């Protein structure tokens, strides 16, 4: 057990998927909260000050990219991973432009998510291989 467990805030509205992600990350990180939409993400992040945020792209009210951009711009959190079903290069560019340094495809999350969060926490960038 590492001495330091980064505090993590999760944002996704798909329950079944969320359940598995929580199970995957529980051993490695301290999960401080789970939110279901973009607006809630911004609000909770402000209150909870997580070390890292993992957010879905497509969510009610605000997309993960717009919420992420806001968190980066307001310096609430700089370590953000976008966890999404979309593998379009344009979306990756949009995410990187918004200051989101982690881009993980949901169907590669089992392998990619933990390394991505760690890289982003270290100030690096991580993008899942887009090619199928």
């Amino acid at each position, binding site marked *: 057990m590492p001495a330091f467990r980064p505090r993590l805030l999760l944002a996704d509205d798909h329950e079944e998927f969320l359940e598995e992600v929580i199970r995957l990350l529980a051993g490695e990180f301290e999960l401080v909260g789970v939110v279901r939409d973009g607006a809630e993400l911004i609000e909770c992040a402000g209150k909870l000050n997580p070390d890292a945020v993992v957010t879905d792209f497509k969510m009610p009210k605000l997309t993960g990219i717009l919420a992420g951009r806001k968190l980066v711009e307001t310096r609430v959190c700089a370590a953000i991973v976008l966890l999404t079903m979309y593998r379009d290069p344009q979306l990756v560019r949009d995410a990187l432009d918004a200051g989101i340094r982690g881009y993980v495809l949901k169907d590669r999350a089992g*392998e990619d998510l933990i390394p991505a969060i760690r890289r982003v926490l270290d100030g690096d960038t991580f993008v899942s291989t887009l090619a199928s």
Partner: protein
Amino acid sequence: MDLSPSALLEAILEGARDPLLVLSRDRVVLEANRAALRWMELRRDAVVGHSLSELPGWKEAGSSGGFEIRHREFSVQQLDGGELLIAESRDNTAVEEERRYERLVFELANMGVWTWDLATDTVTNRSEHGLFGWPAMVDASRHQVLQRFHPDDRGRVLAEAEAAVASRSGFRVEARGYAPEGGLKWVAVTGAVRCDETGYPVRVDGVTIDITERKLTELRLRESEARFRAIFENAGIGIALVGPGGIPVACNPALEQLLGYSASELQKMHFSEFTHHEDVKRDLALYQDLISGRRRRYEVEKRYLRKDGELMWGRLVVSAVRDASGQAVFGIGMVEDITARKRVERELLSLSDKLITTQEQERSRIARELHDGLGQQIAALSIAVASMKRQVPEHVTVAREQMTRLQQRIASISEGVRRISHELHPAVLELAGIVPALRSHCKQFSTDNGVAVTLDAESNFENIPAEVALCLYRVAQEALQNVAKHSGAKEASVRLQHSGESVVLTVADHGRGFDADAPASHAGLGLVSMKERARLLNGSLKISSSPGEGATLEVSIPLTAPEAVGQSA
């Protein structure tokens, strides 16, 4: 001056320009003037003292003692109590000329002159012209004359003539008769009653003029007029004769029924008053062109405003009637009610619109469900396997390998779902826009089909409407599919550009091509659906190709706000 009778006679004889002979009662020549000798080409002594009958070229002529010498007529008058005869000959050339001229006039005018002597009840008709071409009649009975006329007209001719005599006036009657060679002819008979000094009618003078030509023309005209009437009155399509100013002069019953106005109401209106205001300007301009001669006819689909306020769609064909100088006298407009057709067209259009829209909505819904629902469940499964794998110690290799295989299976299922979803509805279109969507499709297509597709797109397409983007994307998809299926080409190009107010997508290949002008029997549902999609957005789609020359498909969609479909016809 010697004024004795013999001197006088001599003066007359020598002064006369025409031949003169003085004869004794028993026709011996007593004297002949110079003109007479010149005419007979005889010396004086070969004439004077000789009997008339001894003169060369002499012959009896006429009833009152006249004669001819060398075809020249001499008339005889008694002088000096009957003892002395004087034979004079006038130069008849002028008279002959006059007669010839008269005959010519009668012939050309098809005219004859007649006189009806009431005392003897006989008719003299001096010319073969005028009365159906029969020979001239002298002192013919009224029965003989009437025989010339058609049995049905005899009574009328006689009645008119007798009425004129009774009223001492004149008459004019048109009647038929048969020509000697058999054809039916028409004459106009005109007569004027002449009376003696006591006012008693003595004769009727008149002319007959052949009017067959005019009658036939009249008949033909009446027939064609009757035919036109019949068409005009009974036609199923509305017909109006419109003055150059645009006001109807005549309207048929069908038009009355179409517009709900009576003909007399329509004749007080300008056609713009029963035309839908949006169609007035165009129709007026076309009508001006027609009247001014810039066009011979025009054809237009326009909306009429019925009296009851309802709209009627009409197909109008207008042509002009011009006078000899080319000036338009009337416009003839023919209107066919196409309201039902227009309604069906509109319904078809909206039906196919609905069909495409519904299909797209349904595809999009299923795509979303697959992508966001099933896709995430599969992703969750994949994570579950990954979590499980993390808990299996590294040395339990068999279990770990099985889990890796399981992960690969899941990844492949995930990929399959993504692909189906993408084909159903490209989410990237809404996420990133038309150009990234096309780029990603071209790339995928190249990989899947072994056809190298290049995309050439200007960058600024972010603001085109979603339905235009979807249409362009679908057309590109379908067109590339055709390239892969039919062209045999290994390369294709997709180009997206602005052209005026439109976006133009071009898909071209250098494959085997086909005859683009051939009947569209080979045009599959794909092409039909591409055209339909373009039409729904007021766009157009064209294909140019010929065998061996490759093929180019071009779709152009206007970006301006589309007009209501079907109203611009």
